[in-house]
Each structure stands twice: as structure tokens, then as C-alpha cells.
């Protein structure tokens, strides 16, 4: 039977890992994800898990050790943030292209420089094209649920890809939350045993993994990663359905909040969606048809489903907690691409909260107000805007 507990996001992630009892965890400390391997190493010390915990000398080696372990046929997990994910970057692509079902929790944090330990999504957005499935989590509950489902998604033979479960650093990773967790046995039964077909230790069938792959085959192998991502769309839904039967908690590719009859909508990832829901409720009570779309699956992006979900909305603001300087935010780029064939929708981009700049209900109200103006006038003056930043020459001066 499920039970209610009070855990931070990091505790919830570590608790999920304890219940999963992976064969190998290799990790390196970095704020704000450090606590995940920290709690996990205590589970190892207490004999509560039967895993090998490897405290490696860098995140590059953390991902490398995960790759070695997973290639050897072991169920393998890790966690990181920010620079750690950046240092892993080379190895992320290799994990994905070797089709290794590693599951990694990312407590999202801004990338240096300047150095900043607080939350934005520049780390995981930088790994967007690495071939990893990316699931985003609004709360500790969602992080916990996503991690357990991620094991199944990653190891599904139709997918066989690594999965990154993202939650907001500090905001979610360190905030205490009441959540519902499964019994150990329920998790064990849900994830099952990992029995890969090909792995290094299979002496009956020796294989070479990662050989040189030039013009004759490389392209096909990359194409297969796309097929796996396509398959993942269906697999993620199937596993969510099974998980709902077990927990009663419904997961899909995204959450729609007051969206079906909405005129204006915000698209936003992770914890900010919680703040936006408060604003939506408030606007709805005033008779304003505001809604929200919170993506859970960012890679693979569920294009058709998002297109259908937003098709009747008149104006959409896509909020990005990461920037692509000289271009648009990564989430916006995807959403506007998806909606390209719907010429009736106006879509704008807000870059917000970089380096952990707080974004409150007032800021999000401003975004909905802007959307109402766009609907009223039918005009978009600025496609990309910055929310909550001191602008040069603006009313708020540059001072500490």
C-alpha cells in the first residue's frame, strides 16, 4: 500500500533509487544534486541496497563508469547538475548511441559563467540533442514517479535509450514536500528484472561495442536513434497507464491545466508550472479563459499531441528558463515549429528566471496580460521578451 511521506526532491530521487536497487551507481558531487548520491551512499552503508556505489573523480568518469556498467549488463543510475552535466556532455551522446538504458536525475542548475548555483534549465537544454529522453518534473512527487517510470522506459527493447529526469534545483530538489510513495515490493514488481540481449559479460556471445562507424553505417545508426525516440512516445504512454493503475496518478506527455477552452495559454516546464496554475485559477475566477500546458516529455517532443492541445488557443506564451543567445528559447523554438501550420495562433517567447531569478505570480500575470493584449489587438510587437530582468536604460537601474 502506498504511504505518505515528507521528502525533498533529492530525498525523493534517492528514495526511488533505493527502491529500484540498481546494480551500479557512479556519481560525483555537485550542487544541488549532491544529496542524491549522498543519501544513496548511506543506503549502501546501511546495507539497504545491494548496489555498487562508485564515487568517481569527475562527472566525465561518472557517465563513463555508467556506460561501462550498463554495457556490462548492469542496471545503472546516476545524478548530476549544471557543470557536471556539461562535463558529461561528450559521454551523453555515447550512452545514447550505444543504446544504454542509464537513468539519471538532473537537479537543474544554471551553467557557468558567471558561476551560479541556482535553478534554470540551461544545463539540460544543452543536452537536448544528445539522444537522451528528457522527462521534466514539477514537484518531488513527479520526480519520484518519473524516476521509477524511467527505468521501464529506458529498458523497453523498443526504446533502449538513456533517460534524464529533470527537476528544478533547490526549488524542488531542496524543498520539503508531502508525497505518496510505493512499497518497495510494488516498485520491484513494476520495474521487473533487467535482462538485456547483448552485453559484455555474455561470454556465449562476445560482442564489440562502439566500433568505428564511417560513411557506410553511421547514418543508419543515428536514424535508429530517431526510431527509438518515436517508439518512446508510445512506450511512455503505455508505462504511464500501467503506473496510473498502480498509483492512481495520471501521467502523459504533458499536463493540460484549464486548457481545453482556453483563449490564452502559457507553456512552461517544471516548478514554474505550479506558480502559473495559481495565476490561471485567479484569472479563471475573473472569467478570463486562461490555461496552461506543462510538458513532461521534452525529448521526444510530442508534436502532434501538442498541436491538438493548443489548436483552439488564440495566443500562447512559451516560457524558457534557458536562452539561446542570438536566437529563441529552446522550448519556444519547438512549440512554434509544431504550431507552424496553425496560422491563427500568435506565439511569443519569454526568457525568465535565469540563474534562479525568482518568478512569482505577478510576473506570470504580466505574461497573461500581454497575451490578452495580443488577442485584443491581433498584433505581436516583440516575439522574444525577457521577464524580470533589469534592462539597460530601463526604469530599474543596474546596481547591487
Amino acid at each position, binding site marked *: 500500500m502506498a504511504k505518505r511521506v515528507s521528502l525533498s526532491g533529492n530525498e525523493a530521487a534517492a528514495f526511488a533509487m533505493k527502491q529500484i536497487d540498481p546494480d551500479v551507481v557512479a556519481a560525483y558531487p555537485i550542487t544541488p544534486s549532491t544529496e542524491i548520491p549522498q543519501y544513496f551512499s548511506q543506503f549502501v552503508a546501511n546495507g539497504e541496497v545491494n548496489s555498487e556505489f562508485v564515487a568517481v573523480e569527475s562527472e566525465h*568518469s561518472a557517465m*563513463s563508469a555508467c556506460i561501462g556498467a550498463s*554495457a556490462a549488463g*548492469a542496471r545503472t543510475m546516476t545524478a548530476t547538475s549544471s557543470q557536471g552535466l556539461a562535463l558529461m556532455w561528450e559521454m551523453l551522446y555515447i550512452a545514447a548511441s550505444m543504446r544504454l538504458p542509464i537513468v539519471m536525475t538532473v537537479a537543474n542548475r544554471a551553467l557557468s559563467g558567471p558561476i551560479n548555483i541556482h535553478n534554470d534549465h540551461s544545463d539540460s537544454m544543452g543536452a537536448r540533442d544528445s539522444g537522451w529522453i528528457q522527462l521534466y518534473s514539477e514537484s518531488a512527487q513527479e520526480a519520484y514517479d518519473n524516476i521509477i517510470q524511467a527505468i521501464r522506459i529506458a529498458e523497453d527493447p523498443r526504446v533502449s535509450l538513456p533517460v534524464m529526469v529533470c527537476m528544478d534545483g533547490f526549488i524542488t530538489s531542496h524543498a520539503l514536500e508531502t508525497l505518496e510513495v510505493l512499497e518497495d515490493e510494488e516498485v520491484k514488481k513494476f520495474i521487473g528484472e533487467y535482462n538485456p540481449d547483448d552485453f559484455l559479460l555474455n561470454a556465449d556471445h562476445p*560482442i564489440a561495442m562502439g*566500433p*568505428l562507424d564511417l560513411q557506410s553505417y553511421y547514418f543508419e545508426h543515428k536514424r535508429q536513434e530517431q526510431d527509438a525516440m518515436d517508439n518512446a512516445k508510445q512506450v511512455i504512454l503505455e508505462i504511464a497507464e500501467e503506473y496510473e493503475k498502480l498509483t492512481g496518478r495520471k501521467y502523459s506527455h504533458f499536463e493540460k491545466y484549464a486548457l481545453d477552452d482556453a483563449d490564452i495559454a502559457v507553456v512552461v516546464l517544471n516548478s514554474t508550472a505550479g506558480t502559473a496554475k495559481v495565476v490561471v485559477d485567479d484569472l479563471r475566477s475573473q472569467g478570463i479563459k486562461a490555461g496552461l500546458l506543462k510538458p513532461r516529455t521534452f525529448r521526444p517532443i510530442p508534436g502532434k499531441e501538442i498541436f491538438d492541445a493548443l489548436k483552439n488557443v488564440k495566443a500562447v506564451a512559451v516560457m524558457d528558463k534557458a536562452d539561446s543567445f542570438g536566437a529563441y528559447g529552446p522550448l519556444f523554438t519547438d512549440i512554434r515549429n509544431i504550431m507552424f501550420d496553425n496560422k491563427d495562433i500568435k506565439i511569443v517567447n519569454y526568457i525568465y528566471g535565469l540563474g534562479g531569478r525568482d518568478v512569482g505570480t505577478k510576473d506570470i500575470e504580466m505574461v497573461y496580460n500581454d497575451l490578452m493584449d495580443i488577442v485584443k489587438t491581433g498584433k505581436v510587437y516583440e516575439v522574444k521578451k525577457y521577464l524580470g530582468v533589469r534592462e539597460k536604460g530601463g526604469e530599474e537601474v543596474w546596481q547591487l
Partner: protein
Amino acid sequence: MLEQIKTIRHAPDEEYYVSGHRTCAGCGPALVYRLVAKAAGPNTIFLGPTGCMYVANTSYGCGPFAVPWLHTQITNAGGVASGVEAAYKAMMRKGKYTGERPHVIVMAGDGGATDIGLQALSGMLYRGHDVLFICYDNESYANTGIQTSPTTPWGAVTTFTPSGPAIPEGKRLWPKDNAQLVAHGHPELKYLATASLAFPLDLMNKVRKGLNAEGPAYLHIQAPCPKGWQFDSDKTIDMAKLAVDTGMFQLYEYENGKYTITYTPRKRKPVEEYIKLQGRFSHLKPEHIEKIQQFVDAKLKAIEVEVTAVSEAAPTD
């Protein structure tokens, strides 16, 4: 437990590094690979960091390995090997893997072992993973076209250390001694040795000692490169022998805190005999060669001092 091979005639007939590679004629590292695989036997997993022995050995659908093999980046063989070792440890404990404990062997070039891969190697040794890490040292980044590496000798010309009017000697740095670097800072290290292609029996037995050790082992094997060093491709073994006979490369073991010199030439030859046969040194003037001779003399003297137990047997002129 792998037994020591008594004579070269007792070496196993079976090969686990077979045809299917595309190395240059006379490739030292390929010959090293063959001996290592022969000594290690069937219950082996090879890890191949990027380098000559990756690029020239494997191509999709065709490769020379009769045992499991996994690519690593040039940076991270130690990290990947740690993961492989941790995996079988956990899986054996959980009853998920019931086979024999496999030999995990890294075959890294000098870049992957002494330069860009040093951090991951050091981490692996420090943490005590049961892995044999082998550096096949061809003394340059050969795969990318002979650029200087930390083990490239002083005075050698590479494409990153060319000789010219301003820098007549070519490379101006003395080589990094990775075996020494590794030996003294890693308490978990169980066995360390240097080996040479010219001494195949000694090489194979050192591989077996490294594999028998319960914990990390490091083997540094000099592997002459006809292309990079610029000598005729039928002279690879001769070159390896000369390196040892001139003292340019020394053969020893380090175990339980003690060094043992495993081969002492009866009469040490001057380094010039080694240098004059290689195009990479052809620009050197007599004063340059003298400098290398002094370096080698000092180095051997240092070993004599350090290895007191065998000082009488140490190489002398």
C-alpha cells in the same frame, strides 16, 4: 589463476587478437595486442580507448577481437573500466552473473594513458578497481599523424614539434615517466611493470601477473611505431631490443613496495646506436645526442640508487 609461461614454446597456441585489422606493416602496438590477448586468454574483456588500436582495429562489422571489446573515449578508459568492474562485482553478488570473474584489460595508447586519460586512470587505480591498465607506448599521438605526446623523447621530431632554425632540436621537453607517476601515489595498486615487444615471454608473464593480482595493475609497454619513428617496418623488434639495450627503456616490476629489474643488458650500448636508426632523430647534432645520453645515464643511476636490492645487477657500461 593464470600460470607463468615457462618458455616461449609453452605459450598458448590460441589467438584472441586475430585478423581483421588495418594496422600499418610492422605495427608495434598490434604485436603487443596479440601477445596480451594470448596471455590473457578467452575470459577477457578488452576496453579500447580511441587511438591507433581503436581506429585501425575496429570498423563496424569487422574487427580482430575474439573476446568482448568495448570502445572508450581517449579520455576515460579508467572510468569506463571502473564501471565494467563494478557491474560484474554487483551482478555476481546478486547472482545475475554466474560465469567466471572476467579479466578487464584496458589497452590505451600513451595519450590515453599518460596525457588526456591520466585523470581517469589515476581515479581507477586509487579506487582499487580490479583492472589491468596497459599503456602501449608508441611515443606519440600516432593515429592523428604523429603529434608529440608526454612520452615522445626529447629531440624527436613530430608534426607538433618540428625542427627548424629557431628550434633545431625539435622536441624540447623530457618525457613523462608514467610508470613512476603511477607507482607511488596509488596505495591500492597491486602490480606494476614495464615490458617490451623484444621480450615476448616476459611481456606475457607480466600480463598474467597483472591479471592475477586482485586489484588494479598497470603495465607500460614500449611499442615501436615504424611510421612515427621513421624506421623500416621489418625492424620493429630490433628497435624495441635496442631501446632496452641502450637504456632508453628499462624493464622492471614493482610489487609489494619493491622494484625488481627484470632485464639487464650485459653491456649497455650508447644511445646513438638507437637514435641513428630513426628518422625522427635524423636532425640531431652530436651535442643533442650527448644530452640524451646524459639523461639516460642519470636516469639509470637513479634507478640503481632506488633499487638497492639489485644495484649490482643494474646495467653498466
